[in-house]
Structure formats: C-alpha cells, structure tokens
C-alpha cells in the first residue's frame, strides 16, 4: 500500500483552505462594495470580518506547523531568500492581512465612528478609505488565492503538484468558498432593500464557479492520469484509492453537487415567485466550505514524494542519465 504524504498534514490544509476562503470573501464583498457603495452593511461587514478571521486562523495554523514558530514570525529574519515562493508569500500575506484588518476596522460603524472622533480627517475620509482599501485589496486577495496553489506547485519533487492547473483549481475554489461564506450573511442576516437581487447574483456566481471548478478539477485529474506513472499513482489515490471516499463524496458530491443544487433551487423558486427559507442557501454554502477544505486536504495527502514513490536507490541503480565513463 502506498503511504500518504504526512510531512504537511492538517495544519497546512487548514491554511490553504482558510487563506483561499478569506481571499474569496474579501474579493466578493469588495466587488459588492464598489458596485453598491454604502449599502448591504451586514453582508459587507460580515464578509470583511470573515476574511480577517479566516486569514488570521489560517496564518496561525501555518505558523504552528513549522518547527520554530516564534522565529518564523520574525519575518525580516526568516523570510529573506527572494528565490523562494514561500518568502514572496509570507510578505504578501502580511500586506494583505494589514489591508484586510484596516478594511474591517473602517467598515464597522462603531470602530469607524470612534476612529473618526479621535481623528477628524479619518472620519471625513471614511468612505474614500474604504473604497481605496477595496481597490488595493482585490488584487492582493487574488494573489493570496493564487499563492496557495503556487506554494505547492513550486515544490519540484512532488509530481502531483507540478502543474499550473493546481493554482487555477485552488483559485477557483477560493472564489467559490468566498462567495459561499458571503452568501451566508446575505441570506441569513441582511434585510436591506434590494438584497434579493444581491442574493440572486451570488447564486448565479455560485453556479458559474461550481461549473468552472468542476471543469478545472476534471482537467487536473485527466492531466495527472496521463502525465506519467508517479502522477497517475498519486491521482489514483483520489479517484480510486485511500482518499476515494473523501474525494468523491466530500469534494465532488458535497462540495460541488450540493451548492449547485441549492443555487438552482433558489433561482427556480424566485422565478416562480416562490420562497425558500434561508436553510437552502446556508446549507448550500456550508457544503461548499466542507468541499473546499476537503479538496486542500486530499491534494496535500496525495502529494507523494517522487523519491519515495520510486526510491532514490532504485533511480541510482537503474535510471541514471549521465554516463561518467
């Protein structure tokens, strides 16, 4: 039996999921905020704080994975090698987190009012600041979402991760889970005028993203099946091996199928002037989150090391390339 990859296990999977979720949620509410300034406060506030919390917990998970967490937190000492994607990512995450936190502070009425009374110019410029933070935050959030996949893709010894389809897959999943998280607030808490249209737009976005994610996921699986023996063995863990149940049930059925059905149900119901309770969108979004986490977990677990799949010794004795004499 092939052993699963355990050097990076639960904690990095939690980070890859929450980093993507935070990025996706921030992106979604920023677009909403730029499109309809000053409206849908509950959805926007909920989404921004979700982004902050997700990124904070994700970063904690990431930092607790390393052997020396406290040393790792001294960024200017521990992330200095510019040729490493992890260095780029660490600084990107720092900047993004600061922007997310600032945006959350200026979004929350009580905090923003207090800031405004403490420093008058801040209070007057609040709307402008929020807009600027949204505009800066969108590309940063997108970069964080892509980086979760690039981090794995830049590890050359793991055959399963060596494709640009992985950053693509994680990015689409990040948007998908982000929209899902925001739609929970829109469905369960927000009662503003016009929220129906926002809900419908979010549901349409869910449909589009789920279909896109299914296409990218299928492309990823098919590419890996045809890429070589090591890649095929690793992807086999998902499609028929030790991770088969998690993959087909939680990633595909729960993570893609349920949100799609929930979104279609709501669109059909609203066309026929019918009403569905908030349980349907909230349930669909919860399923998307479960699928998003499981996707990161199974991709990590199936990331078999090339040398351990076909041992270094075997390669030494049989597969060497350069003849010395």
């Amino acid at each position, binding site marked *: 039996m092939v052993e699963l990859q355990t050097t*990076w296990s639960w904690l990095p999977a939690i980070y890859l999921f929450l980093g993507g979720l935070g990025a996706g949620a921030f992106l979604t509410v920023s677009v909403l905020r730029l499109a309809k300034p000053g409206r849908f406060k509950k959805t926007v506030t909920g989404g921004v704080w979700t982004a902050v919390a997700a990124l904070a917990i994700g970063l904690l998970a990431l930092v607790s*994975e*390393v*052997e*020396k967490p406290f040393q790792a937190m001294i960024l200017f000492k521990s992330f200095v*090698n510019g040729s490493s994607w992890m260095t780029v990512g660490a600084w990107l995450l720092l900047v993004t987190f600061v922007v997310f936190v600032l945006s959350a502070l200026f979004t929350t009425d009580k905090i923003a009012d207090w800031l405004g009374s403490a420093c008058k110019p801040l209070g007057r410029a609040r709307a402008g600041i929020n807009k600027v933070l949204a505009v800066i935050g969108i590309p940063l959030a997108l970069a964080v979402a892509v980086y979760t996949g690039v981090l794995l893709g830049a590890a050359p010894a793991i055959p399963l991760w060596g494709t640009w389809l992985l950053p693509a897959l994680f990015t689409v999943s990040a948007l998908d889970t982000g929209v899902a998280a925001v739609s929970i607030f829109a469905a369960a808490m927000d009662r503003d005028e016009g929220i129906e249209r926002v809900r419908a737009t979010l549901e349409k976005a869910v449909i589009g993203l789920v279909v896109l994610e299914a296409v990218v996921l299928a492309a990823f699986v098919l590419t890996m099946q045809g890429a070589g023996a090591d890649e095929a063995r690793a992807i086999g863990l998902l499609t028929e091996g030790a991770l088969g149940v998690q993959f087909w049930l939680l990633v595909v059925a729960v993570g893609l199928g349920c949100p799609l059905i929930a979104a279609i149900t709501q669109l059909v119901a609203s066309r026929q002037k019918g009403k569905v309770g908030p349980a349907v969108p909230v349930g669909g979004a919860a399923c998307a989150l479960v699928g998003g986490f499981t996707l990161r977990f199974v991709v990590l677990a199936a990331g078999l090391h*090339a040398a351990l799949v076909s041992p270094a*010794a075997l390669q030494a004795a049989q597969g060497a390339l350069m003849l*010395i004499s």
Partner: protein
Amino acid sequence: MAKQYGFYMDTERCIKCWACEVACKQWNGIEAGTIARRKVHEVESGTFPNVTRTFVSMSCMHCGEPACAKVCPAGAITKRGEDGIVVVDKEKCIGCHYCFFACPFGVPQYTDAGMDKCDCCIGNGVEPGDTPHCVATCPTQALQFGTMDELAAKVGDKKAKQMAADAKPSVVVS
C-alpha cells in the same frame, strides 16, 4: 569550475553492514531512534529464480544546483563555493519542511533544532575535503569520497553513472 566534492558508491562491494550509517550517527551525535543522515537502501530486481539484490548507501547528494537551497525561505541552506558542500545553518532554519518537497531525493529530515542532513562531516571537525566518517569506516571501500574528478578516476572503466536529476547531484554509482 570550482571544486566539487561528492561520493562514489560501488554497489559490487557493498555488503550491507550498515557501518556507514552507524558511524554517521555516532560521529554526528544523532539521537538514537530519530533520523539518519545516511541510509543503506536495498533494491531488488528481476523475477524468481533470477533475482538480484543491490545495496546502495545514500545521503545528501551535495547537488550542483541544490533545489533545497532555492526554496528555503530563510536562506538557511547554502552551497559552499570552495568545495561544493551543501550546508544548513540550523540557527536560521525555521523548520517549514519546504526543502523536503523540493529535494528530488527526499533527503531533508527534521529535528527540533531544524533541518538535518549530511555536511560531509565538516560539522563534527573533519577538515573540508578530508574523508568523512562514513567513508573512513566502510570495510569494503564500497563508499568513497573525493572531488568529482578524483571519483571519475577511481571509477575507471567500470560502468558508473552519475545520479540523475535537474539539481545535478554529486554522487556516482556503479
């Protein structure tokens, strides 16, 4: 080209006595039951009744272009210019495990102090370029050490091959 030290593994001579592994652990003060910088692998080939077993002792390959050093965020892994030995600065290492996923041979291992791997014994007092303890202790001279040119001369007309990977490992196997 600057000097590059490396290992030569003569599989015809290896009797799988593990002396290299033991010497490595002893001299480098590696706690029992934890990691091993050098490991003796066994490769089976053929089908019964024509089966052969080959023994290969492997550690860090001190690659020409080390993939581990490229991905290390802390800059804790360096390739020494004077002898090509790849070393880890454990003070700088944060233990993120990224190098394990970059190394084509899965060499990096981890302790609380950080990443741990072969440094050709320069960490325990052997002069760079002098014989490391694994090689000195090998009773059959299956494991040898030297510059890549010296190793090529030792290999002579045997069918030896340099380990293959994009990172250009400094290990020859025959």
